[in-house]
């Protein structure tokens, strides 16, 4: 247990350094940006305010201070849990991120599980039948997916299932005109189907190819040959020796893929107008909501880090070969 504590402490230290670095770099980039926050905030009404009023807004926001002072002020507030106010939503950034992430979590979680299970299954199928037509088909499918633009696939599904077949709704997370508290779970799921399907179909590729590779490795190993010599069947070999050895890398790979999942959800949410974190990211970027953008950048770093941490942790806890502070 002691080793686990030191492991977690070390990871926490890394996380703090990471977040500090990300915040400093993003802050520097944003302060170098030619986009003027005052005009981004006011937008088309820019011609109607005088330069004195403009100065006033800049001074109120502390834009007249040098960047270092601004960063320290931001940091001081951020440490107290205040990431500022989002300009486009007119709400505290943390609140926006929290609410939006909750919506995205359902989408990403569903896609994550489905793509993991299907990808693993396809990988096992392909690996067990190496060289067969099934293997070729799965390989072709996985490699083609790697070249497919996420948003195009989303559009394709939308055209087929929403526009032509009318099976699924065309946008958003709930039917229009229904109050948020009246939306049933089935309505939510109904709206979730297509975005989740998009991300699942694309997420399959990586895990399927890796699982296939691992299974082929196991089946060609010496212990597999010995097991075969003792009369183990092909299926038995896969069930007894294969699955155990390939399940772990698959799980860790799936945890480490959170970064791509996040990127995919930005594009999928954009197509389906799904009000999740990805859509908020796009809005923040398009409309120059600097506090929100900064908050989301930090949050996404935290998100990816958590995924990698969980992958590490599972490895450490489950795999006896690299168990923390183990025999070696």
């Amino acid at each position, binding site marked *: 247990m002691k080793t686990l504590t030191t492991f977690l402490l070390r990871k926490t230290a890394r996380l703090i350094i990471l977040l500090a670095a990300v915040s400093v770099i993003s802050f520097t980039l944003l302060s170098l*940006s030619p986009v003027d926050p005052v005009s981004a905030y006011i937008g088309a009404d820019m011609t109607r305010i005088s330069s004195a009023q403009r100065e006033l807004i800049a001074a109120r926001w502390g834009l007249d201070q040098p960047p270092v002072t601004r960063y320290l002020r931001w940091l001081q507030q951020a440490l107290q849990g205040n990431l500022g106010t989002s300009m486009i939503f007119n709400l505290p950034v943390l609140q926006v991120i929290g609410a939006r992430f909750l919506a995205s979590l359902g989408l990403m979680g569903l896609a994550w599980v489905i793509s993991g299970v299907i990808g693993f299954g396809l990988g096992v199928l392909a690996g067990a039948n190496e060289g067969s037509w099934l293997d070729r088909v799965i390989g072709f499918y996985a490699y083609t997916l790697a070249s497919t633009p996420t948003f195009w696939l989303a559009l394709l599904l939308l055209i087929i299932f929403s526009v032509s077949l009318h099976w699924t709704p065309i946008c958003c997370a709930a039917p229009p005109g229904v109050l948020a508290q009246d939306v049933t779970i089935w309505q939510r799921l109904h709206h979730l189907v297509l975005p989740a399907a998009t991300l699942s179909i694309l997420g399959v590729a990586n895990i399927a190819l890796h699982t296939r590779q691992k299974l082929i490795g196991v089946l060609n190993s010496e212990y597999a040959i010995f097991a075969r010599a003792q009369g183990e069947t092909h299926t038995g070999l896969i069930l007894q020796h294969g699955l155990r050895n390939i399940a772990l890398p698959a799980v860790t790979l799936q945890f480490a893929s959170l970064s791509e999942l996040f990127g995919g959800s930005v594009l999928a949410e954009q197509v389906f107008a799904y009000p999740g974190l990805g859509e908020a990211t796009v809005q923040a970027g398009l409309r120059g909501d600097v506090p929100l953008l900064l908050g989301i950048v930090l949050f996404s770093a935290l998100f990816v880090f958590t995924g990698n941490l969980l992958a590490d942790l599972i490895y450490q806890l489950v795999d006896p070969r690299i168990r923390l502070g183990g025999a070696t």
Partner: protein
Amino acid sequence: MSSVPLPPLIPAFAHPRERRFGNRRRRTLWTIAFCLLLLVAVFVGGYGLGEKGLQTALTERNQVPGLDHPFGTDWLGRDMLTRTIRGLGLSLMVGLLAASISAMLGLLLGTLSATLGGKVDLMITWLIDLFFSLPHLVLLILISFVLGGGLRGVIIAVAFTHWPGLARIIRAEVLQLKSAEYIQLSARLGHSPAWIARHHMLPHLIPQFIVGLILLFPHAILHEAGITFIGIGLSPHTPAIGIILSESMRHLSTGYWWLAVLPGAALLIVVKIFDVLGENVRTLLDPKTSQE
């Protein structure tokens, strides 16, 4: 290389596919030729088609794909094939530029990291980890927002987000080379570091670099399309693939499927071709698999 005679590597009875299409080397050469042809076709075609297809022709609005307009026409009567080819040309240009810059960055930082070692190495590996710790798309949005969008913004954003993978590969390769026996031996024999770099290291790094560059290319195009699709990149008047697709979203519910399906499929095919090319070149350049 070894004194024991090797068994013949080419089986007496070649696989039916080999008999029909030649061996991998020949097939790869054909792929390269085809890719170059495609590049030229897209570039030349984009200009050769002229402005005619891009002008609004209200009499020919919303036509289903047919003989006159293989990709159909949009709500302004513009020929979608012309727009798609123009868009692909732009995407290819952005992708080529961004991938080249990115690959150069990766090569430079990877080599520096491995050769200088110490603090520089720590700094660069930390930077690589830092880039991997953020989702690509978030970073792309951040950088192109900071640069105020535009073509320049997109190119820089894509270029600055794709180097870490290659840098990591190059660094590992150089580190491995540095400890290789024949290189140590060469140094003991009195060859200067520059001579070793030129004669022993470069032949190993160039294939890695070329493969890395080709494989970066599809990523760069996809990300360019993604960011223009979101609308942060280019102005809505540029006929980029991402913009064509994002415009088509507004006309989806009316059933004009061809606005989205065909340009996207064209993009997919172009990206896929370059992916296949990269994988083939990799197998060909890797001595372990080149004889298959």
